[in-house]
């Protein structure tokens, strides 16, 4: 019969249309379908969701998965009281600047008073207009000193210099990293400890530091994916 296809299709639309309202009713006495943590979880859960799955951003936000990556930040020690950040973890080795695909990292290596390079950046810039959020800098930094952030609300009225993040803007304490990605941060910490131990062992044996191994151990832990 001509038109049967349309009728069948309309039935699908009708079901989709009513489902959301029915779900609304279901949640009516449990805090509502929207702006409700519990309902959001169910709405996002595969197989349990009924009706529209949309999120009322910005009132509702999806939790970020740990591996979510946005503009990087620099890790520092937890700050001493009265200060915003502590000692930089970055040793200004330059690996991140070399691997960065659009070349948006600028690092000025620190110098000691005697003119020798100091393992600490004097200046560190990332042009976030150019950054493509690829995550290579965090992936290849051997010192866990640069990490991908979860803060994606960076809209700004100025499109020039406010988008060049300097060291002050980039630095965030390690406690922040632990807060946004607890499991991954713990795994990294375990890896660092392991690396430290194996390094210590080697030292005591034949006085030959082998940073390669430490690196290796750390990578393996990551790539296994079992730790987080």
């Amino acid at each position: 019969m001509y038109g049967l296809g349309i009728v069948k299709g309309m039935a699908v639309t009708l079901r989709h249309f009513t489902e959301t309202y029915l779900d609304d009713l279901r949640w009516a006495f449990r805090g509502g379908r929207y702006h409700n943590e519990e309902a959001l979880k169910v709405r996002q859960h595969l197989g349990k969701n009924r009706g529209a799955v949309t999120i009322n951003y910005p009132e509702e936000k999806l939790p970020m998965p740990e591996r979510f990556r946005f503009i990087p930040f620099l890790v520092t020690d937890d700050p001493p009281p009265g200060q915003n950040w502590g000692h930089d973890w970055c040793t200004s080795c330059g690996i991140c600047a070399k691997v960065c695909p659009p070349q948006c990292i600028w690092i000025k290596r620190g110098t000691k008073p005697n003119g020798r390079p100091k393992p600490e950046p004097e200046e560190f810039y990332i042009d976030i207009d150019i950054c493509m959020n690829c995550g290579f800098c965090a992936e290849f930094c051997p010192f866990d000193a640069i990490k991908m952030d979860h803060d994606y609300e960076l809209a700004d009225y100025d499109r020039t210099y406010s988008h060049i993040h300097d060291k002050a803007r980039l630095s965030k304490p390690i406690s922040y990293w632990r807060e946004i990605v607890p499991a991954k941060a713990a795994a990294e910490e375990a890896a660092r400890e392991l690396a430290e131990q194996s390094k210590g062992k080697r030292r005591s044996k034949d006085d030959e530091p082998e940073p390669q191994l430490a690196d290796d151990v750390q990578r393996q832990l990551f790539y296994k994916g079992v730790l987080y």
Partner: protein
Amino acid sequence: MSDEALSEEAMQNEVVEVRVHTDPVEEAVERLTERFPEVVEDPRPDFGGYMVPANQIRDVAAYVRDELGFDYLSSVTGLDLIDEGKMEVVYHTYSIDKGGSALVLKVHVDREEPTVPSLTPMWPGADFQEREIWDLYGINFEGHPDQRRILLWDGFEGHPMRKDWHEPFYEEEHKPFGSRWPGGEVFRAEERNPYGKNVQYPAGWQPESLEFNPDTEVYAGMTVTREATPGLKTEKVTVNMGPQHPSTHGVFRMVVTLDGETVLKLEPVMGYLHRNHEQIGERNTFIQNIPFTDRLDYLSSMGNNHGYVLAVEQLLGSKVPERAEWIRILMVELNRISNHAWALGFLLNDMGAFQTPALYMITERELIVDFFEATAGSRMMCNYMRFGGVAYDLPTEFRGQPTMEFLDELIYEQIPRFIEEMDVYLTNNEIVRARGIGVGTLSAEEAIAYSTAGPVLRASGVPYDVRRAEPYSYYDELDFDIAVFYNGDVYDRYLVRIEEMRQSVRILKQILPHLRSTMGAPIVEGKPQYAIRVPRGGDAYGRVENPKGELGFYITAKTRSSNPERYHVRAPSFINLTALGKMCRGHKVADIVTILGSIDIVLGEVDR
């Protein structure tokens, strides 16, 4: 029957089932070199392919196409061999019937006045590709019916892919740039090249003196030629559809000549999103290109990653661990489903079912891209594959559910349910049928001649799928059918995509047990490295069946170099557009929109 006898019988059965892979290329080459003694193997070590003298390329191509059966000209690539003072054009031809690898033909011409006979008269699919080479390299294709710039604007000075052409923000030949470390002084590229100085003009041309007659220049498209068809009061009108038009899926223009409502001629105009991706790729190191490939066809970045790493792995000689291969297939097939869901949703948009089907379609896609985000870190710009493996293992859990449980539910329930629902919803809908059947037809011969790929090719009755024709990864071990339909119209392209989603589900079901059994196994070969150098130079062509069609990467490199010498993308969206004019001719103006929707283009890949 004893166990031994059983297993013996099983063995015999197996022997019967084993297909004999004879390389069609070897046989063809034998005949080719016999017929044309001037055709010789590329003498450079580690380079493949056969050198053809420029004045013979047409004869050789005709012989290859008609006698040897390599009837599918997949890719035409230009190269600038500045050290040798030469320009090169590389043709990749395939045999649709026999499958297998490419018969590669290469032509060397003098760099000062590069001229190569055009193959467009034989293979209309070479049209846009040769125009692109003219545009970017300045190689002149003799006999090309319409040799104009295609990606850049007409007043552009120079040919930007030549090795001696430097962009206004040029810093160094290769990354990493020395100015970034250890004495990094930050600057903005716009400051060094303020507006007005960042463009080069042809000599003697003043932008201020640009005289501009709106009637002839901008509205050239709207000229009405008062030339009535006998007996009917119609006028020939030329209309611009785009560049800003909701139906063009991006910034894309079609110059359409209409007789009343009937399309007489349609010509795509593109390049609005051109960023010289290939030159960026040649400045980049090998690993830096991976995130850039995400930006080509941004709806299927996993597939783009896959094609690129396959090409570079040929140069590196990597061996991918088993688990990594299964994860790659998992990601690529999920990506195919999400891409087709998007394509079909927006095809329906183009037919006039505004947004409702599109939103139903992308509900499941949402789950897939969120899974990508949990695994790779980003929903669309996945940057997930690495040379010799993948970047991360699957997460242990996704949204509070163990990952494997989630995948089971997704692959066994959610996605099949969604596909069947959409099937009920749309396939027999009378409007979809009326708008789709018989619209934008392309016969099998035309589809091959126009070098179309992917669903466009398969909807025309050509069962050609790279996953079967030249299996990569573990596709030869997987059981699936090539979706093929025979009418070559919009409706069949719709059906092909629905069927391909079903086949993807079938593949996914087969790889779940492998993902379970390889849990915890290595996912990348060796230690991840950021400074990768190829042990040997040479050229490599890696191709995958992307949702849009065959995506190929042609890469050449010098020995021990850390960046590609040539990085070419065979972009399926771009090449499929070659046939758009042909498909639209004779149809109504409203059909253009559905025909374009049925090709499923992404402008990031068209314009590169």
